[in-house]
């Protein structure tokens, strides 16, 4: 039962990534693409944590930590440049 629920969760995360990449391809403006990358980083944190559970290795959580702490820097930099900052 529990394993099946995790499988369904994996399928849902799969479709979330598919939708995010679709928004990146459709785009329209640069900001839309940046929103896609912002969402996809958070989804990848969840994916890495889930994979750490599936493989049973605690070390992978460290990578999720790096993502959670540093992934917003790229979005912040692009936002600051788009509004003609430094």
């Amino acid at each position: 039962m529990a394993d099946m629920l995790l499988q369904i969760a994996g399928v849902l995360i799969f479709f979330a990534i598919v939708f995010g990449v679709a928004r990146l391809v459709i785009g329209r403006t640069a900001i839309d693409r940046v929103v896609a990358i912002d969402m996809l980083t958070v989804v990848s944190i969840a994916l890495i944590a889930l994979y750490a559970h599936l493989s049973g290795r605690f070390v992978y959580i460290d990578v999720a930590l790096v993502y959670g702490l540093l992934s917003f820097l790229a979005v912040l930099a692009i936002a600051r440049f788009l509004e003609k900052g430094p």
Partner: protein
Amino acid sequence: MELTGSILVLTGAFFLFSAGLGLLRMPDTFTRIQAGTKASTLGNILVLAGLGFYHPDWALKLLVVAYFVLMTNPLSSHALSRAAHAIRTPMAPSTMVDALREEGDRQGNGDVS
């Protein structure tokens, strides 16, 4: 214990899925920013909480990850929506009120944050 954890993970994955759906289907940039940030933050935290039920000895580090996401994700999306507003990204036709622009007009410089 495991059932609770898996149900939490499933709920979080559903929120992540709805974040992706909102990103694809919302009419303009600002609503997309809202959908992509709020739903994905909640979904991520729920997934981490569910994994904490599976492995109680990982709980501290998962909590730290959730805290970091909670700290950094709103920051980046705030900066992003501010940039989108500053370069006058078109809004959906159903948007009635632009309070930030009205405030800027009242102060006469068009630059409030």
